[in-house]
């Protein structure tokens, strides 16, 4: 069965974001909604928090470039191509939010690199691209999971956990597209 035939991803995302805005605290909602002045007023920034956000931003910028590579590879057929561009759009939203938050907290947001190294020689089929993307998304889930407990500002932890949820959905959908169990276990690590 193809996940492309059902609107469940869009519904899940809408439901997730809708629920998130209901349960997150005011500063986290401000961050997620782009109200940075309100977010900054929530308290003085810890330099470690800025570093965590910048590391996450670096990974998001690389993910955007990776999906661009996939989109331009001519290996992705519709509707997989549309899916890749949708996920790239999510990463752009994450990156935009992270960059603005870093700046608002008094830091300097890292910029995208002029170029990225990707294993282009091993990407020969649509499945190769999907597997590559799934690996990046799985890593992103782990990276956010490893960052969530480190924030001094617990509202940033919540915001990072919200992004983690989005990355986990990407990973599950990509696994499903590859014919793998979309959710391989009860926990992520």
């Amino acid at each position: 069965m193809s996940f492309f035939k059902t609107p469940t991803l869009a519904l899940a995302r809408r439901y997730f974001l809708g629920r998130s805005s209901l349960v997150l605290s005011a500063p986290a909602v401000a961050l997620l909604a782009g109200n940075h002045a309100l977010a900054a007023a929530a308290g003085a920034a810890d330099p470690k928090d800025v570093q965590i956000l910048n590391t996450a931003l670096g990974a998001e910028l690389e993910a955007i470039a990776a999906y661009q590579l996939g989109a331009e590879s001519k290996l992705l057929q519709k509707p997989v191509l549309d899916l890749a561009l949708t996920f790239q759009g999510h990463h752009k939203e994450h990156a935009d939010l992270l960059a603005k938050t870093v700046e608002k907290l008094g830091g300097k947001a890292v910029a995208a690199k002029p170029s990225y190294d990707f294993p282009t020689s091993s990407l020969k089929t649509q499945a190769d691209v999907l597997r590559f993307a799934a690996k990046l998304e799985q890593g992103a889930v782990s990276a956010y999971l490893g960052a969530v407990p480190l924030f001094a500002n617990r509202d940033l932890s919540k915001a990072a956990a919200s992004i983690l949820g989005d990355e986990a959905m990407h990973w599950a959908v990509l696994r499903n597209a590859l014919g793998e169990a979309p959710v391989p276990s009860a926990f992520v690590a």
Partner: protein
Amino acid sequence: MTRVPRRAAAWHAAGGALLILAAAVGVFAAAPPPSAARGEAIYARCAACHALAYNRVGPKHCGLFGRVSGSVPGFDYSSAMKNAHIVWNAQTLDRFLASPLKTVPGTAMTYDGVLDPGERADLIAYLQQAGRSPECNAAR
């Protein structure tokens, strides 16, 4: 207070010691040796930032063992990592992976760490094996 005869107390003590020893042996016997195969699965957690053969958000891992921290040419390290002066080996990696930010405060590797010692051993075993792989040999 109940008085326990001295000989009986000695037997109790000896029995207790044996139980502790048996439990300790059981624990050590149950700990499996490090597994590169399990470590490869754990390495998937690193895939947001690292690859074996090329630099990403984090530096490449080929050539890691014996390398001085902050020394991959062309990689933009944090000042903290540049000044850490750690030579990467199984022991230093174990310490760093347990808590990157505590080991090198200020590192850009803002990750809580691989908290389980067995998982760290597996991950290090994988990194050692991967360092000898054709992928890493080709990257030299």
